[in-house]
């Protein structure tokens, strides 16, 4: 009766099956809500030629940025990048390809990928470089562009708590892209702060139902803050 127990105990198990040239969808916004240990494991495994789909690419030395160090990333699909010098360098060298995608379109592409919607129309990006070469159709007199969904070989997710069945909840704004990314991976791996027993999470309050999750691992997190800004009286 272990079919629903998604817990694994080593990072090797967590990322087993990851190979060169695969597509990995990663949750997180900036350095908030990122699966730190899973990213470290990808670096350790040394796989190359990865396409990474994630809103950002971390910073120098932290987050997805560490995968640049050994040139493991072939292509980034993101809405905002370049918070790191190494990224900039590899991009200008032509060692790294970037597909810039509007943030909302990126979130919707992941959701659509997980939901069996191969494509959808959006006004976002029409008439801009993002719309170039894409199908245009008018609805109620307004032009929209057709955007295709995204799925990945792996999805790597950071949640707050998960139960053994893979049901997840996220903490504060560390939710961000994680729930959509979790639906869009052929293999979805969740790194959590705490593993709880089934029943501890209220059924209506689960953000990611376990059906989307293949593996759960308990991690430890540095949770580096990108921009610490304090209230005036505390500065």
């Amino acid at each position, binding site marked *: 009766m272990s079919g629903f127990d998604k817990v694994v105990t080593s990072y090797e198990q967590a990322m087993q099956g990851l190979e060169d040239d695969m597509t990995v969808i990663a949750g997180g916004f900036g350095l908030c809500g990122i699966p730190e240990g899973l990213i470290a494991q990808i670096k350790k495994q040394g796989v190359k030629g990865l396409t990474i789909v994630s809103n950002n690419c971390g910073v120098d030395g932290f987050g997805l940025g560490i995968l640049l160090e050994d040139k493991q990333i072939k292509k980034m699909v993101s*809405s*905002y990048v370049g918070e790191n010098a190494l990224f900039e360098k590899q991009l200008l060298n032509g060692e790294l390809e970037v597909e810039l995608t509007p*943030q*909302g*379109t990126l979130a919707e592409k992941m959701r659509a990928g997980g939901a069996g919607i191969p494509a959808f129309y959006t006004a*976002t990006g029409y008439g801009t470089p993002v719309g170039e070469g894409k199908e245009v159709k008018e609805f109620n007199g307004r032009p929209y562009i057709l955007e295709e969904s995204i799925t990945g070989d792996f999805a790597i997710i950071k949640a707050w708590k998960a139960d053994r069945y893979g049901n997840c909840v996220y903490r504060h704004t560390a939710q961000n892209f994680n729930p959509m990314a979790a639906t869009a991976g052929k293999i979805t791996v969740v790194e959590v702060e705490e593993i709880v027993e089934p029943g501890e999470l209220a059924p209506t309050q689960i953000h990611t139902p376990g059906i989307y999750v293949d593996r759960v691992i308990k991690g430890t997190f540095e949770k580096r803050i990108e921009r610490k800004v304090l209230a005036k009286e505390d500065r």
Partner: protein
Amino acid sequence: MALSRDQIAMRVAREFQDGNYVNLGIGIPTLAANYVPEGIEVMLQSENGLLGMGRYPSEAEVDADMINAGKETVTAITGASIFNSAESFAMIRGGHVDFTVLGAFEVDVNGNIASWMIPGKLVKGMGGAMDLVAGAKNIIVTMTHADKHGNSKLLPACTLPLTGVNCITQIITDLAVLEVADGAFHLKERAPGVSVEEIKEKTAGKLVVEGDIPEMKL
């Protein structure tokens, strides 16, 4: 005299009505939150998934899991809601956010905006800006009227790659408040002490000036 950044923000805040849901971009737009008029409440939407963004945290309140769309540490107000990025942009794209305030490099007489990419410079990305300009009911662009070399940013046609087309209706600069309609900028207000002549001179796109143009109230 040209408005300061804070004065532009003050003028922006006078557009808000009680009960508005507002998304404020980085820079001058963010400052507008400090000048919401007495008796008016707005709720701030941050596109990383927070409706009801509060002030910056005290040292004790700092939490790496609680940030805004500018990746700054932040707090939530009582009655806030937090959700995923798809839901956040469903709100934006679906037209549920009443106001978006954002900066720009250029705006033109057809309501086109360029704000994210300068060819030849490293392109960091559009983030959520393209979704915001495609989705919000009302968009206010805040920027200086001209760049530091004196070149107008209000053009007959944008020269830089666009962020959105036909979407800008209101512009608040350091010199003026303008509406965009029928292929022209319509001058509505001028900064205290700034002449219509100066505004004409610094507006490269077609400018319509009708009747007396009042000074802004801040």
